[in-house]
Each structure stands twice: as C-alpha cells, then as structure tokens.
C-alpha cells in the first residue's frame, strides 16, 4: 500500500466520525440499519452473542452472503477476517468490500502474528485494549482502531476500560518529558515513532471507535463523551426487541452525545435491550478481548 492509498483509507474512516456501524447478518437487516442512519454495516453470519453461545471455530463469513449485503445497501460494507488470517483478508479484498475488521470475535488463525496490513490496498480496522495495542496495529498498517470491549455481552464495562486505558496512557505520554518516552514505550510495547506521534497529537493518529458491549443509546453517548470518534454496535441492535427503533435511537444518541435531553428522548420506549452478561461469569478462555496482543 502506498502512502497516498493509506491516507485515503484513514480519510474514509474520518468521514464515518460521529456515526454508528452496525452488525448485520442478512440483506434485510442491512436495509434496516441503512434506513436507521448507520454509516456502515459489518456483514457477518452470526452476531458475537451467537458466536459466543454456539462455541466452536468462528471464521470469515460466506462471501456469497457478504456480496448480497453489499448489493443491498449503498453505505460502506465491512467484514471480519480472523486475526492473522491474511488469506481471508485477500478474499475480502478481492470481493471489493470497503473495510476489513481483523477481529478477535472470530477465532484467531495465528497466535503470533497479526496480518501485515501494509500489503493490502483495502483498509483495516483493528481492536485494541490499550494504547500499546492500538499503536502496534497502526504500525502493521491499520487505518482505523476500535476498542475491543467484550463483544456479545451487552455489557459496556470492557469498552469503557479500554477507552479509559488509551486516554490515560495518551495523557501520560503528553505530560512526560521526552527522555521518559523511550522507557514508557518499552514498558508498554509501543512502537517509539508512533508513541511520539500520539504524544504530539494528544490522541491516536487515526480514527478510534468504541466497540464491544454497546447496547443502549446511553452506552453510545457514554463512549462518545469518553472521547471516541464513533460507535460499533454488534449484537446490541438485532438481539433487542425492536431493532429498527433501537438502531435509530443509537444513531441519535451518538450524534447528540453531549445533549442529555436528546439522549433521554432517544432512550424512551425502546423495549427490551439485549440480555446482558456479567464479565466475571465468562470463563477466562471464552473472553474475546484477550485474543490478539
């Protein structure tokens, strides 16, 4: 990927700022998401809540189904490849979708290496739990970052933890004297040049969305107020009682995150949210955020 292509890929993510990206499993859901005001859809066979329930190996979705979703909407289409599975990524690039999510929601294909994203023209978004992880993914060529959160739980606590961790580390970087940056970068496993850039910019050098456990308009506004640039909602919409209504409400709460009256209005009469999961009830081996490094 040349420098200009990478810049264009970062810039597409910039155009998604302030918006909501929704998981959809078929063309009909994709239409509902688009009409509700989603800025993009994530095409996948099973939402994270079902992947969690079903167990087994979760792989890239059937390209036929992704292609059908791509035909049914005009907004950008994203799809997931397994961590390190660069051939799944090659297939998704050949399918000409708009963005690949190298995602911990799927079963990792490689426990040592993530995909070398610089080899692709198509942009990648990657999950991160802290600043080091985010900067490592950017070093590998990611054009957009999202928190990992804990997908499929309807529990926002992990997304909050990850966003706060990134913000805290950025604040530490900004406030430390230059000579301390090398040691800080070494301890956190940060690529040094990117640590310097984050220090200069006072934020990640690419767009950073919140993901993993967002289920309500209030969750979305919370993440926006914590400083993220936009929202991914996975299971939260189509596992709820009234998906179209909830989707519209989360779009409004994301756009008006600083306006409690608007978020209040958006929160009314939505019906049941998706059932939530307590993180401590999930066995360590089944927690998705620990996948990848």
């Amino acid at each position, binding site marked *: 990927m040349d420098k*200009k292509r990478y*810049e*264009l*890929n*970062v*810039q*597409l993510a*910039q*155009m*998604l*700022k*302030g*918006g909501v990206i929704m998981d959809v499993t078929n063309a009909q859901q994709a239409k509902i998401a*688009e*009409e*509700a*005001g*989603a*800025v*993009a859809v994530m095409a996948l066979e099973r939402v994270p809540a079902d992947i969690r329930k079903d167990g087994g190996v979760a792989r890239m979705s059937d390209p036929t189904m992704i292609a059908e979703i791509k035909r049914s909407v*005009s*907004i*950008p*289409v994203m799809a997931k490849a397994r961590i390190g599975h660069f051939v799944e990524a090659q297939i998704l*690039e050949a399918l*000409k*979708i*708009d*963005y690949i999510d190298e995602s911990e929601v799927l079963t990792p294909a490689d426990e040592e290496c993530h995909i070398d994203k610089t080899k692709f*023209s*198509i*942009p990648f978004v990657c999950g991160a739990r802290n600043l080091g992880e985010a900067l490592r993914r950017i070093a590998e060529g990611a054009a957009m970052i999202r928190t990992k959160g804990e997908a499929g739980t309807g529990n926002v606590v992990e997304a909050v933890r990850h966003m706060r961790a*990134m*913000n805290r580390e*950025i*604040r530490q*970087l*900004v*406030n430390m004297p230059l000579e301390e940056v090398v040691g800080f970068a070494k301890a956190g496993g940060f690529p040094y040049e990117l640590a310097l*850039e984050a220090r200069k*910019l*006072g*934020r990640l*050098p690419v767009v950073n969305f919140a993901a993993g456990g967002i289920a309500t308009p209030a969750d979305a506004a919370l993440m926006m107020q914590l*400083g993220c*640039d936009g929202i991914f909602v996975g299971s939260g919409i189509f596992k709820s009682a009234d998906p179209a209504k909830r989707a*519209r409400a989360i*779009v*409004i709460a994301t*756009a*008006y995150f600083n*306006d409690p009256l608007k978020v209040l209005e958006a929160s009314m009469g939505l019906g049941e949210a998706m059932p939530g999961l307590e993180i401590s009830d999930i066995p360590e081996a089944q927690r998705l955020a620990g996948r990848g490094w």
Partner: protein
Amino acid sequence: MIGVLDLQGGVVEHLDHLKRLGLAGLRVKKPSEISNLAGIIIPGGESTCLFRLLTISGMKEAIVREFQQGMKIFGTCAGAILLAKTVIGESPCLALIDIEVERNSFGSQMDSFFCEALVPRVSSMPVPLTFIRAPKIKKIGPGVDILLKIGNYIAAAESPDVLVTIFHPELAGSLAFHRYFAHKCGLKTIKEGRSMDDPTWNAKSWTQFARVAD
C-alpha cells in the same frame, strides 16, 4: 461567520480549513444555532445518515429558511448529494441546487482516488482533489455553472447561492475552495494570492480538534 453542520462526518476537517483562512467556524447541531450565518458547510459523511438526522432534528427546515434569507451553502461529497434537486433512485433532501447526482458512483473504497485539476474560477494553480466513495454530478439545470468537469461527469458546480463538490477540498492542503466559498458569502480571508496551498497543513491536522489529552 460560517457554520459547519455538525451531525456526522468530516466536520473538524472543515473547521480546520476555515481557521487557516482566519474565519470563525461554528459547529451547528440545532436549529437554534443557525441564525445569522453568512454561510454553512454541509460536510462529507454518509448522506443517508445525514438525511435522517437533518429531518428529525428540524435542521432541514432551518437550513431552507436561512437559505431563503440569504445564507450561502457549500456541500462536499455527501453534502452535494443532500443539496441536489435530483438523486438517482432516491428522494432528494434539501433540493437547493438544480443538479442530478448519482450516489457512490465510483465503486468501493478501493476505487477512491486522489488527483489534481485546474479549476480556473477558483484558483490559478492546480487544486488537489480527494474522491472518497464519491458521487457523480450527471447533469445540471438552468442557473447552475460547471466549475470542473472530468471525463463524463461534473465534479464541481455552483449556482449564485450554492457551491457543490463531489470531492473533499477539506482533505488536502489547498484552501482555494474554502476561500472561494468565503468570497461567495461576502467574507474576506487572511490568505489571498495565487497559491492557496497551506504548507503547514498535513493529513493529521484534523486531530487538533479531537484531542483526548492536552
């Protein structure tokens, strides 16, 4: 003062360009924030999302009302779609300039591209153009002038009160289109002259408006 519609999309990128021209940019989210603007910029983003938010927020009526009072409008990419009188296969939103557009007319993100072109009315130097999942302007009606045509499509057009580009002038270092719009609004800028390239702009300039730590 020039406002930037702040519902979704590339808002801060426009604020950054306005600031470089010495203009006060105002984020506009609600109908109560729009009065007395010389102009408003409708940024790039997703037009379906912006359409929905414009409708439910009452901003659609507010923009039309202010437009009738003399406010000028500049739409980039999705902004151009929202301003178009005709959108192929879909209903129009603001319908304030007589152009026909086709959404997402180039293909997927992998068809997004960057080039340069001369736009004589806007700048005497070539202007950088960034196309991201861009629409195309297919036709223009009476009262609309073409500013830039590339091959079989129109990339920039204007009426006396509305300026539209299918590319993103806010995603490159040239301030030429923003200066042109400011003049259309009757405003003076601090940067004039032949080259409107701002050497201090870079692709990360937007981040100064979205810091998480200071």
